[in-house]
């Protein structure tokens, strides 16, 4: 494994940053609109577009191929929308149908292209899993223009997109056209996918539309902050993917980028404020508090039959009331001053413990 930061690697890195920027933005909208699978369908639908563009022009410049991909992606989206609106099929079915039909046809075309002797070196198959090394300086120019388009539109239509996604009906009653806003958003989604195809590939590009915002949402509570974090996550994984794949021989870029962003999602799922670890800790703390409370209320119930409420009882009596509490919980209550150890297994409430127990019982009933 050797890493040489030479000119082609720098070009790939700039590409990765542009992909991170655009997919980080679009990812937020896709995830919040609960349309993350639309990105998957668009990316897969791009494959036949790439192939047809090549077959028609026999030109393998990314500019030509990506134009084909964009047209196919848009046509795919159009079909999906039409199926949802005009037929009784639901969205997931429409997405599945278009994804498999387009991608199947694309694979067929790709196999055919491989059989044309002059086309064997077209490098088209690299669009399946992506190869950041294939990005040229001229591609960076196009990618930058498209990225500026996405960033600019997001800034211009910030409030429109936010309101459209949060409450489309209200958006309409404010005199806006949800159809127009949706259309702009879909065009931007298609563009951001096209930007990523060369580096990430058609198969895994959807991960860049789903993962960055999924992770960012777990950390941030406002759309702006969420979007910035989403961009940071996407860019980080893009850079890491490019560096790793240029250091390791024949390591494809797309899967490497996606592995890194997936790790970010997993780490976020576990460690974020909404994450599983916090939830687990909170649950444990609650359980412990409930167990401590129940020791106090049980001791109180037992002592009620005596004139003296501090009367100690053998802790094994608790067997009848539920569980015999472990020693460490009793010691915790003792150090808090709620109970005292009479002898061996016998414990009783202190005066502070009595009033605490009464509080607990009042809260429960």
């Amino acid at each position, binding site marked *: 494994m050797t890493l040489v930061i030479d000119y082609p690697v720098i070009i790939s890195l700039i590409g990765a940053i542009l992909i991170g920027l655009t997919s980080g933005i679009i990812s937020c909208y896709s995830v*919040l609109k609960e349309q993350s699978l639309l990105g998957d369908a668009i990316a897969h639908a791009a494959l036949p577009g790439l192939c047809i563009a090549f077959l028609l022009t026999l030109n393998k410049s990314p500019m030509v191929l990506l134009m084909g991909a964009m047209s196919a992606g848009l046509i795919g989206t159009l079909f999906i929308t039409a199926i949802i609106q005009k037929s009784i099929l639901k969205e997931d079915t429409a997405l599945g149908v278009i994804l498999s039909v387009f991608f199947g046809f694309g694979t067929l075309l790709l196999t055919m292209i491989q059989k044309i002797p002059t086309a064997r070196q077209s490098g088209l198959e690299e669009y399946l899993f992506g190869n950041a090394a294939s990005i040229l300086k001229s591609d960076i120019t196009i990618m930058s223009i498209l990225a500026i388009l996405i960033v600019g539109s997001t800034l*211009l*239509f*910030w*409030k*429109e997109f*936010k*309101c459209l*996604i*949060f*409450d489309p*009906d*209200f*958006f*309409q*009653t*404010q*005199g*806006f056209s949800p159809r127009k806003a949706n259309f702009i958003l879909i065009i931007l989604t298609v563009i951001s996918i096209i930007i990523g195809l060369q580096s990430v590939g058609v198969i895994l590009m959807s991960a860049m539309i789903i993962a960055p915002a999924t992770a960012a*949402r777990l950390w*941030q*509570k*406002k*759309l702006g902050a*969420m979007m910035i974090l989403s961009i940071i996550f996407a860019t980080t994984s893009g850079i890491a993917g490019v560096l790793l794949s240029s250091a390791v021989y024949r390591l494809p870029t797309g899967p490497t980028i996606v592995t890194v962003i997936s790790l970010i999602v997993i780490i976020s799922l576990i460690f974020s404020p909404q994450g599983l670890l916090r939830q687990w800790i909170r649950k444990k703390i609650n359980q412990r508090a409930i167990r401590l409370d129940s020791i106090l209320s049980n001791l109180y119930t037992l002592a009620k039959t005596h004139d003296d409420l501090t009367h100690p009882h053998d802790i094994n009596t608790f067997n009848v009331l539920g569980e015999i509490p472990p020693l460490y919980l009793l010691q915790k209550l003792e150090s808090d001053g709620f109970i005292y150890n009479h002898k061996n297994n016998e414990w009783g409430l202190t005066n502070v413990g009595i009033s605490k127990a009464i509080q607990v019982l009042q809260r429960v009933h």
Partner: protein
Amino acid sequence: MKKDPTEIAVSIKDLTVAFDKKPVLWDIDLDIPKGALTAIVGPNGAGKSTLLKAALTIIKPTAGRVDIFGQPIKRQLSQIAYIPQRNSVDWDFPTNVLDVVLMGTYGDLGWIKRPGKKEKNRALNVLEKVGMETFYDRQISQLSGGQQQRIFLARALVQNAAIYIMDEPFVGVDAVTEKAIVTLLKELRDQQKTVIVVHHDLQTIDEYFDWVFLLNVRQIAFGKVKNTLNEENLRLTYGGRHSFITAHP
């Protein structure tokens, strides 16, 4: 009812909405008077929400027209503040209370222009009116049902519209919030605003509202609550089932 068109806030004519040939609303003719509280009442599936949405152009009607103060609705949207059902949005959306209320100023701003200091002050003012001023930077996912409804109400109030259209505002809110909302609605009415509410609690119609529209796909009756909300009309609206749900005379 007066026939002077300026006194009619919302005029609905021959409105029919059908999904796949199944009529959800059938030939509705309705003139809602200005400066009154009007309830729209009917059983589940009667088309109450659909009526609101068709009147607001959210749903395209199969036939019919809606006029606001004698003008076609398309040109009059800014006169109307819509308060959708609380559960129609995702309250986990990453935004805060002030941002949601500011959405009520978007219509005035139009495309691209962002809300500024003036809009923020307006939003803070209405938050005070609904008793939520201290919550302005609160994450919306942390609000209770009653607070969510107050936020929606604030978002409508900030529009300073002439007509307020609400879809089931009292669902899942506590009694205190319900009373607070009713007080606000009555204040609006007293300022000559028109308030139209989809309501499902027959017990409170006569306490809260001036006019009532009874609907079950077709229109059953419309008029002042005391003349309209009677046994006969309720039976026509709810079929035989209304005796289970109301003790109203």
